[in-house]
């Protein structure tokens, strides 16, 4: 047994899983609150990456460099992603609050297509190089074969985000309001919760996460183009469903399981069928546990 190889694959799988988890968290939060698959979430991720690129470009060409560029780019990207997420919710989803299931879904698909093409036309459909905003840390040197610096940052950020979100949901007022809205929207309204604001807040938080993910992942990959949102979105959504959609630890678990399964499948069997492993795993798990790994089987009251 080649343990070295196994360990390498494991590390790569965990990193890949964290990448999926970071984006999946946004999906799962929105779904938890309004039972909507926000297809456009992937595009918010993409917009975050693009804004970061633009800010970085403007700042570096004006002469600055170093860690501050990363922070600035991430902050501005997060602000803009939040703005886009907020606007998206207001335009495409809020008018459809009471409508049957399919309407907001189609609207989401339409919004996703619109946003992707909007960025394509406003910027360029080409691939653009993305600078390595996260420099190689010296203390990571011996482990670089397994986990590079930006990988480490992604892992740490994902863990922090998960903790932060759990704290937010459990211990803060807005978290309580979110849980209330999730349980029963009408009652929440009746007890005085401004449901509209809560939902907007959810979208804003989800979008900020997407933007952070966008900046980090783009730094890792080294390039972006307008299509990255779609690919990332599908995989992240799969991860969220795998772990039980609406469930924050579930999104992270789902992401990790997906990432590890894909990496092992690619490493031991064949890289070409990577996505087949991902979706095959999904079908398998959903057949055995229709609510996902950590999902609660919702009992429907008749």
């Amino acid at each position: 047994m080649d343990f070295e190889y196994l360990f390498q694959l494991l590390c790569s799988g965990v990193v890949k899983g964290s990448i999926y988890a970071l984006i999946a968290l946004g999906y799962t939060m929105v779904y938890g609150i309004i039972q909507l698959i926000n297809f456009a979430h992937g595009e918010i991720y993409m917009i975050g990456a693009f804004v970061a690129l633009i800010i970085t470009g403007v700042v570096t060409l004006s002469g600055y460099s170093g860690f501050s560029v990363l922070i600035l780019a991430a902050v501005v990207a997060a602000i803009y992603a939040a703005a886009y997420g907020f606007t998206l919710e207001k335009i495409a989803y809020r008018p459809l609050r009471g409508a049957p299931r399919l309407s907001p879904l189609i609207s989401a698909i339409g919004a996703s297509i619109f946003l992707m093409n909007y960025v394509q036309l406003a910027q360029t459909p080409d691939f653009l190089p993305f600078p390595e905003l996260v420099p190689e840390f010296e203390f990571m040197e011996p482990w670089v074969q397994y986990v590079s610096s930006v990988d480490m940052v992604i892992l740490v950020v994902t863990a922090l985000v998960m903790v932060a979100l759990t704290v937010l949901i459990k211990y803060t007022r807005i978290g309580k309001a979110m849980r209330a809205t999730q349980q029963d929207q009408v009652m929440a309204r009746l007890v005085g919760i401004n449901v509209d604001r809560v939902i907007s807040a959810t979208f804003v938080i989800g979008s900020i996460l997407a933007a952070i993910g966008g900046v980090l992942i783009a730094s890792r990959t080294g390039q972006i183009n307008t299509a990255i949102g779609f690919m990332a979105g599908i995989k992240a959504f799969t991860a969220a469903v795998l772990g039980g959609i609406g469930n924050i630890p579930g999104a992270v678990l789902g992401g990790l399981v997906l990432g590890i399964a894909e990496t092992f499948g690619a490493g031991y069997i064949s890289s070409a069928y990577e996505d087949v492993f991902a979706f095959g795993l999904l079908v398998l798990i959903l057949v055995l546990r229709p609510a996902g790994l950590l999902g609660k089987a919702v009992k429907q009251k008749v």
Partner: protein
Amino acid sequence: MQKSTLVKVFAAAFASAAFSLPVLAADTIKIGVAGPHTGDLAPYGLPSKDAAEMVVAEVNAKGGINGKKVELMIGDEQCKPELATNVATKLVSEGVNIVIGHVCSGATKAALGIYKEAKIITISPSATNPPLTKGGEYPNFYRTIAPDDDQAQLAAMFVIEKLGAKKVAVLHDKGDYGKGFADFSKEAIEKSGKAKVVMYEGVQPGAMDYSAVIQKLGREKVDAVIFGGYHPEASKLLAQMGKKKIKVPFVGPDGIKGDGFLKIAGKDAEGVYATGPKDVTQYPLNAKVRAEYKAKYGKEPGTFFDQAYAATLAAVNAIKVAGGTNYDALGKALKTSPVETTVGKIKFDAKGDAEGVGFAVYQVKNGAFAEVK
């Protein structure tokens, strides 16, 4: 039934049909140029369009061919086969005499059947899929670029002989072009018997992370990597290989030999090998035309510009020599009458490949491609 809507739809279709019925055309020679002019792959198709436009403008300024003006018909198919068939039928129904295109092998394959039936000669500047000429199925197809198997053979031999690799990994992007290049390379290596293909994997274009494949490279301790595909995937692979400190020679096809690759890969591109059309800047016509382009557009011409310019020149020359646009006469002219072009003095062989064009290996040195002698 909403009568008004249905009637409106049909009226619209009918009206637009009526407007595009071929008007009794003035006596012009119609040259079509087809390729991706919008969409992801537009950077590969727009230089060909520019080249054709330049040639046609010059020819018309000199009075046309045999006294007739040349009309350029442009068809955009985004490299998609089903759109390519639409473009082909459109060009054919509008009376095109000869087509420069298409750009992507898949789209060309889809459209060739239509051109073959309508007996329209097609000269492609970039469709490198070997069976298009070597299979013999499309006697109306010619190209001013060498086919992929030549490229792959060259890459394989280079890796074995010049780089001395014994264990080679062959990767591809699962696409028609990339996989084709990879398969031919693999075949060439195995046939030579001097090296072993220890890894043969396809990677998903658009995926964010290729760690598994790269770690496999490390495990197998390969001496060289041959990659079939385009620059986005190549640069992702190289970036991640660099991160994992796997430093092996990387050889790619002409799909990565371009500024797009240098731009995206940045410092990871240093030392990377790519096969590409033989250096044509030595030809005087080439330098002259490139200078013209730069003066007009303010930038260097993009991929396949030289080949497209050559293809259009060959088409114009063939029409002149044949005295018209008769299919058989044109074919004969292309095969027998050499023409001075931006890729040298060429004529076409019996199968449709251009004689005198070939591939060479390049390496990125100090941020630019330089031919490896």
